[in-house]
């Protein structure tokens, strides 16, 4: 077995790590929540339920929609994309050609960018689609959390950072790159 094949297979297997750890974490800090309320976004779910419940309770005062995992289709179909990617990776290792490795790398990079864009769209939607009936209305104020980094949203300081799971998306890219690099 060649180095590139091993690397590609390992990379494909590593992809499943996204099921073990959250990909992203959004945390809200406020005087009443000094250690923060953290919401973890996984490839197939959002945890933990109590933090999400509390965030929803707080959000409803400014008219934000409820965050309901059931209403986010990505959480349902994204796991299939992971399975497909892994399967394609194994097939690529079977074919074992430089171009195929590069194509797989291109697919996962494009999917990664799309995923981040999709995440941005959801954040935008939650932050801007506010109910007219909201008890607290601040003219011009949106509640979109940062894509990455920290930001003040009224009395809350919100942070948004990749979590461990994101690594299992990045590592396969490196392994595929290595496969491409070492394939003669």
């Amino acid at each position, binding site marked *: 077995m060649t180095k590139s094949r091993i690397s590609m297979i390992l990379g494909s297997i590593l992809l499943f790590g996204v099921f073990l750890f959250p990909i992203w974490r959004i945390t809200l800090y406020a005087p009443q929540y000094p250690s923060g309320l953290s919401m973890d976004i996984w490839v197939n779910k959002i945890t933990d*339920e*109590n933090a999400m*419940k*509390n965030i929803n*309770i707080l959000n409803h*005062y400014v008219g934000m929609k409820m965050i309901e995992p059931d209403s986010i289709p990505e959480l349902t179909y994204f796991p299939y994309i992971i399975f497909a990617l892994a399967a394609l990776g194994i097939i690529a290792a079977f074919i074992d050609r430089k171009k195929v490795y590069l194509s797989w790398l291109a697919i996962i990079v494009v999917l990664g960018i799309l995923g981040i864009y999709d995440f941005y769209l959801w954040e935008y939607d939650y932050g801007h689609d506010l109910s007219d009936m909201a*008890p*607290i209305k601040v003219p011009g104020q949106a509640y979109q959390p940062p894509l990455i980094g920290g930001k003040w949203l009224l009395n809350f300081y919100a942070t948004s950072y990749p979590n461990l799971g994101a690594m299992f998306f990045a590592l396969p890219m490196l392994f595929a790159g290595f496969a491409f690099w070492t394939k003669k």
Partner: protein
Amino acid sequence: MKKHNLFLPVIAALMLMVSCGGPQGGAETFKKPGGALSSNAAERVYVAPGEYDEFYAFLSGGFSGQLAVYGLPSGRLLKVIPVFSVDAEKAYGFNEETKPMLETSFGFVPWDDSHHPELSQTDGTTDGRWIFINGNNTPRIARISLETFETVEIIEIPNSGGNHSSPFTTENTEYVVAGTRFAVPNPQRDMPINEYKGNFKGALTYISVDPEDGDMEIAFQILMPGFDYDLSHSGKGKSHGWTFFTTYNTEEAHTLMEIGASQRDKDFIAAVNWKKAEEYLAAGNFKEVPANYVNNELDEDSHTATSTKHTTVKVLIPEDCPGLVYFLPTPKSPHGVDVDPTGEYIVGNGKLSADMSVHSFTKMLNAIENELYDGEAYGIPILKYDEVLAGIVTEPGLGPLHTEFDAFGNAYTTFFISSEVVKWKVGTWEILDRVPTYYSVGHLMIPGGDSKHPDGKYLVAMNKITKDRYLPTGPEMNHSAQLYDITGDKMELLLDFPTIGEPHYAQAIPADRVMQHSKKFYKLDENTHPYKALNENETRMERDGNDVHIYMTTIRSHFAPDNLQGVKVGDVVYFHVTNLEQDWDVPHGLAVMGARNSELLIMPGQTETMKWIPQREGVYPFYCTDFCSALHQEMQGYIRVAPKGSNPELKWSLNE
């Protein structure tokens, strides 16, 4: 006239004691001390904002019936836990769930006198699982969970007339004990009071504690002569397996007790071999007699207490059970009985005696083995005083009441009459130090000070008289407690703080044995309350004859439903409110206009029920009482009441 003559020897004795044991100097001795304290006392009790205290201290509320939790060394009040008295603030004894906790064989009793908190122990060390406390008046023992800081069980003690020598634990919390202060006819019956002698009995009760869930059961009672059983402590280490009870009124007087019960030079400490009792029980050498008592338990999942009646109790008669009980003669009307951390020394705090007698457990066993008896009382052998005595603390002060210990072989005794704490050496009986208290100290408490492993460091004196210690608040003032540092050779007064009710006795435990187990909220998916509503879709109203059940929820910042109709005068309305919150410290309250009841205060995940009997037709507001959120003030609703005899349709809604 005859009564007055009886007073004279007592007064003379007291004066004699004052002249030989009292403080030296003139009237300036009693001047209120100024700022002559060691200059860094403030620093040593200062707990910076946001920092935690080192110890949890549990001070009984005495005649308030409750248990107060303080932080030490700051003396800050952390919580008042309702135990034996109703508490409108927390709806304790007012909501349907906790009413059964205050049931007794006499029916619902809204008050008691709570004296002695006692932490559960494992291997003689406080373990932070539960704290027990006695109800004096209608004899009961309560168990409080240190996960939730709520009263979770109360058991009534039958055949008892005043549950004072209680609820002191054995070293692995095998039992908590309950001796009766007042002897009563046994069996209880209508009889002349002046036929007390021989007919009245004192029961010593052993309540077993389940090592897993803490469930209390009356294991057995020992039916003793009609003395007053004042206080108790179980042995530890070498004396594990024994319990010691002080007695007064061995004279068996039944009137003007202050004189009648103070005649003998020596009363007794009753030493009970409870391991022997277990043998007699196993051998069937007991009587099962009719009794009438209840056991009330709170189910933490349904958040509901139930009261169970019991009708018999197992009784051991000392005369029929040789080796079960011995009497240790002890001067004079001993109050506290305290066992040192090694388990060897049994201190009898003879409150009317000039000296203090300390017995030796080893000598006691020897005296039993060699039958060194000085007669017997009601079939119970009296051991020879000189054969059990370990030593005498000579002229320590006036009116010794209670002793606790540090980890370095020192004992600390309170003196009520001379209003001081005296430190002395166990074994040499030498007096090492004395400090005044303000005023008339009863119990004292050293964290772990009655266990095998005292945690030391501080001593809290709990006083009966306050007088000039704080800004005056009319004739009644909160009782004072003083905190002393006992780490040095000399005790140092650090802090003086007011307490609730009467801080009768206290216990304290290092914070880390409790704080990590403290519950933050109840999990909604573990709620098994029969009238719960786990989300707003489950909220509704149901009619069952004249009873109307409202299944209601709370979440920041509304009730669901908040418009209620279909109730009429003559109905009995039950608001079953489930707090849907799942976050720390987000209770919601419910108050209904005109309700002849308290508010509800519902913890996250909990369901509580308010019974409301509408009296007049109209539309009545209800609202949340706990400032829960930015829109707390909007957390309100209406209930419409139709005239008596009408037939309104049940209707409930939110945002319609």
